[in-house]
Each structure stands twice: as structure tokens, then as C-alpha cells.
């Protein structure tokens, strides 16, 4: 067997899988997006740009997504970085594995069930009741953008923690010693050595969380009480409720295009931010 044949054979399953499960469905979505809604819903063949012309009708959904996805990603980063730093640098190695497992454990339960748990935590009998017992007023938490953000940060935190943890763990400690030897206080070593060297992990984590958040629909539906509407929710309704598949396909195409643009811009910026390093990539 020649090396070339071996490579081809080894790549074949992935190639076939991607072709059948990603490329072909995307082509179907693209074709549908130029079609018309059949009278009773569904798809009827046509070539029209009307679906794209109507995209404005879902502008609020795009707006909500384009605000809440970056904000959610930023919150995840703010919370995940210190945690990852502690796990990778500060904590006693004998506890590290246990603590890492604790970060993963929630993933063993479906996000649907965990989101339902938040309904009760944020509902009138949960945290708001505690707050009012302490005499601090009775805040409304459930079914607000705040509840959606809470759910998002809770659900996606591990995806941010792990890439940052890995990049911090691989950090060469001798660089920090060198920095200290040259008279740099710890905060400066952090800013000039640790932070830049962990940027690949930060960039990867942000990318993972951001891309998934752009397509999120479950958490807004459950913790937003149906009042906080993401593009994902618009898509679910278009395909399952109003059954306007061509318009749904057009919204999906627009979402994919927006992601491509933002992710490309983001990669370009993070590369510059990380000082022109070439190893800032998705993984």
C-alpha cells in the first residue's frame, strides 16, 4: 500500500461524513433559500430573492443574537480566565484532576434539564425569595435577558475554561523566572508574559463559545420565557411553526454569512493582538 493510498483511505470516512452531513445539507439550505413557501407550508421550487429581501422582518432576532452572543462570550471569559489560571498555575497538583473533573461533571447531565433547574433557582421561590428575606427588595430574575445570560455563562463556561487551562499549563515557567530576574513585578510578568502566551487558548475558547452561542435557541426559550428571541428561536419557529422553509433557509444562510464575516474579522484581530503570532488558531 502506497502512503498516498493509505492517506486517502484514512481520510475517506471523514470526507464522506462531511460531504453527506455538512456540504449536502448546506447545498439544500442554499437551494431552499431561493424557493417559495408552498400554500400549506413547506417548500415549493422557485428562483426568487424575496426571502433575502424579507430578512429585515427578523432584524430584532439578529440584533438580540449579535448583542447577547458577544456579551455572553465576554462574561464567560471574565469568569473562566481566573478559574483556568488557578487550576493551571496556582492549585496544588494533587487537587487539580479532581477540580478539573468538577468542571466537567455538569456536562454529564443534559443542558435541557440543567436549564430547567435554573427556572426554579431564578423563579419567585428561589434566589429572589432569599434576597427578599434578607430585606433587599424582590428582584424579578426569571424570563429576563439577565436570566438568559446566567444560563449561557453557566452552560458554556467549561468550553472556555479548558482551552485557557491548556495554554496556561503549557506555559514555560522559566520565562516567568527570567521576567522576575529582570526586575519585573508579578503583575507585569502576568501582563507581558502569561497573558500574551495564553492568548491562543483565549482565542480558541472565545471562538468555541461565540460560534455555539450564535446558534443558541434552548436557553433563551427556557430562561427567557419565550420573550428573548435569538436567531435560533426564529429558525425553530420558521421551520416548525409557520413552516416557511424557504424564508427559514434564507435566515440560516444569512446567519452562516454573518458568522463567516465576524469569525474572519475576529481571527484577524486576535492575530494582531497576539503580536503577529502564527499559532493563534482554532485549536
Amino acid at each position: 500500500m502506497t502512503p498516498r493510498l493509505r492517506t486517502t483511505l484514512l481520510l475517506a470516512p471523514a470526507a464522506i461524513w462531511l460531504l453527506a452531513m455538512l456540504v449536502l445539507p448546506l447545498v439544500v439550505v442554499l437551494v431552499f433559500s431561493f424557493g417559495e413557501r408552498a400554500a400549506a407550508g413547506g417548500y415549493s421550487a422557485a428562483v426568487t430573492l424575496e426571502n433575502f429581501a424579507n430578512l429585515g422582518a427578523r432584524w430584532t432576532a439578529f440584533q438580540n443574537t449579535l448583542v447577547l452572543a458577544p456579551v455572553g462570550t465576554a462574561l464567560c471569559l471574565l469568569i473562566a480566565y481566573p478559574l483556568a489560571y488557578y487550576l493551571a498555575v496556582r492549585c496544588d497538583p494533587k487537587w487539580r484532576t479532581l477540580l478539573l473533573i468538577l468542571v466537567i461533571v455538569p456536562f454529564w447531565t443534559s443542558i435541557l434539564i440543567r436549564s430547567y433547574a435554573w427556572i426554579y433557582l431564578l423563579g419567585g421561590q428561589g434566589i429572589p425569595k432569599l434576597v427578599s428575606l434578607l430585606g433587599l427588595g424582590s428582584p424579578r430574575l426569571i424570563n429576563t435577558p439577565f436570566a438568559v445570560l446566567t444560563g449561557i455563562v453557566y452552560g458554556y463556561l467549561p468550553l472556555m475554561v479548558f482551552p485557557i487551562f491548556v495554554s496556561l499549563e503549557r506555559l514555560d515557567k522559566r520565562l516567568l523566572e527570567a521576567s522576575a530576574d529582570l526586575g519585573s513585578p508579578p503583575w507585569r510578568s502576568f501582563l507581558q508574559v502569561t497573558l500574551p502566551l495564553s492568548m491562543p487558548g483565549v482565542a480558541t475558547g472565545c471562538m468555541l463559545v461565540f460560534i455555539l452561542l450564535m446558534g443558541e435557541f434552548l436557553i433563551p426559550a427556557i430562561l427567557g420565557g419565550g420573550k428573548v428571541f435569538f436567531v435560533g428561536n426564529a429558525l425553530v419557529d420558521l421551520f416548525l411553526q409557520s413552516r416557511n422553509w424557504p424564508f427559514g433557509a434564507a435566515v440560516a444562510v444569512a446567519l452562516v454569512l454573518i458568522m463567516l464575516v465576524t469569525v474572519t474579522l475576529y481571527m484577524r484581530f486576535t492575530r494582531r493582538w497576539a503580536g503577529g503570532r502564527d499559532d493563534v488558531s482554532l485549536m
Partner: protein
Amino acid sequence: MTNRNDFISRERFMAELMRYRKGSVTRRHFLGVTGLGAATAVLGSAMPGLRNAAWAQGNIGDRVVLATWPNYHDPANFEAFAAATGAAVDMNVFGSNEEMLAKLQAGGSGWDVFVPTNYTITTYVSEDLIEPLDLSRIPNYDPAAFNERFAGPGTVDGKVYAVSKNWGTTGFAVNTSQLGDKPQPTTWKEFWDLTQAEFTGRTMVHDYQLTTIGNALKYYGYSFNSIDPAELADAEKLLMAAKPHLFAISSDYQPSMRSGDAWMTICWTGDGKQMNRDVPEIAYVLGKEGGELWSDFFAIPKGAPHMDAAYAFINFLLDPAVNAKESLFHGYPTADKRVDALMPPEVLNDPILYPAAELLDALEFGAAVTLTDPNRAELMARFKSA
């Protein structure tokens, strides 16, 4: 030891059923104490519908796939069916008729039996998604026993496509302990006004265009089914004004009503009954202006993979004794007078389940056009994303 011949009273049966549903007792205890376990074992020969039929010999296959609504069947009946025929019930639960239709339109659903609502059946027929029924294979369906008002929509162009399951109403539930000295609301006008005043942040509406838009239309006295652009524009104005005052847009309202987070919600009969039974201050109200009257059906989709099992299952559930158990379990009335004859009088006199005639007469069946009207769908999307 339990005496198997012991008679179990209706009250005791319901009490045991409640204990079982609350999880206080195990299924085994429940089946044992109520005699249902033993009943299950002998059902194959005891049920008139199951006796002497070819498929009772076990050649209907090992499963029947059902697409239905939440909290709409007694699992004990499924067990009995499986024990008698060898076909296990594989249940899929849906949130709206639109979703059901979308799945059937997409094809390959694999369902044998589904539970469409009256106003969707003509669309299923015109889309060629539903099988005309061979009534000779459903001997338990006696058209004369069924109330024509509720069973009628199953027949399209003289052909029977669906047989009646249950009927009910769409009103609203209100937690009367939150009303203060205000009288209990009786109209949809009061529902929407209260939502934007004293009940701000406490009202829920369905995540469902038919009922949410329909009952906003009733505020102005328009038809529940209107697709008139000017009337829909009025409804949209009301919905947009009410949106900031809503607790949630969701059809899963029982948890929030029970916990006290929500005080009022658009509500279906069975949910209203279940909440009122456990939390008496939650009242069920039919708006005086009208609203929705609906009836659900059993039907078989085109290309059902287990056709024999589908017929056997529908016939089994339409057996008045089985149907009565279903009805007692989920709280929705049937249109079958043979079933009514088996129901306890307090159920038949329950104003939530069997509303007064003048309230009932104001109600409308949903119209097929609302299911496919793009303007109502877009209105709902604007309302949800606003």
C-alpha cells in the same frame, strides 16, 4: 395478602391514582391495589374489542408509534395494550399542530397513529398526508354514540379520516388570591386589561399563534379565526402593548402558575382542571366573548409502518371502558355518550369540563386557514421578537 376479588371504590381508585402520579407509591403498588395489574393479564380475553380478532393472536407486530400531546394518556392503558397484543406503545409528544404537520410534511416520521386537532384535518387531506379510515377495523367506533359537533370534523368530503378522541376549550386560568377586592374576570377584555395593569409581569400566553392571536382578537370582539389584515393589525397593537407586561410566552404554564410566579394564563381545559384540583384558588374562566372550542382525533398518517397495530390501538382506546380510564386520568371529556355513562356524576357536573351551554355556544372551532395563513405566522414572530 391482597384479596384480588376486593372491590375498589371509584374514590379509592382516584386516590390511589393521585398517589401514584405524585410518586408516593410505585407502579407495582398501584397496579396491585387497584386490580389493574390483574386486569391487564386477563384483558386480552375480557375486552370485547380484543376478543376473537386476528391481531389479538399477536401478529400485529411488536410496536405502535404514537404522536400525541403532553399528559394525554394513561400509561396503564398502554401497558394493558402491550400485554394483550404484544405491541409496545412508542410515544412522541408534541407542542403544536404546526409542529406535527411540519414533521409529516418533511416525511419519514415513522408514526402509526397521531392526534390531530379538528382544524388541521382538511389540510392533512389536501396534502395527502392522512389515510382514510377503514371503520370495519375499528368496531369500537360507533358513530351514533358520538356527539356530531365534536366528531364531525373527522369526516372530509364524506370520508372518515379521523375518529374523535377528546374535546375541550381554551379559556384562561387566574389565581383569584391575587385579585385583591377586584371581582374575578369573566372576559378576554378583562384578561388583557388586567395583564397591563394590576397583573403586570404575571401573565402568560401560549407560544401558539392560534390561541394567543385568537384571544387578542376577542378583545375587540372579532372572530377568533380572523385573517382580516385590519383586525390582525388591531390584535398586533394589543399584543405589542401587552408584551412588556407578560411573564412569559410559553405553553408550559403549569409550573409557573403552581409556584406563584405567574397569576394568570391562557389555558386548556385539562390543565385548568389539574391546577384547580391541586390549587383551588386557581380558577378556570371561559371568556364571555368566546374563544376556542376544539376536538382532537385519532388518525393514521399515510404510509404508517405498522398499519395493523395502528387500527388495533385506536380500537383499543375507543373501547368505552378504556376511554373512561383515559378521561379520568387526563381530565379531558370525550364526545362518546357510552363513556359518559361510565363517568362519576361529579365529573359530568364539573363546570370546567362541561361548561354551561351559553358559554359553550360563544366558542368557535379553529379554522383551517389559520394553520396556513402566513400573516398570522409573521404576526406571531414579530410579537415574540419585539
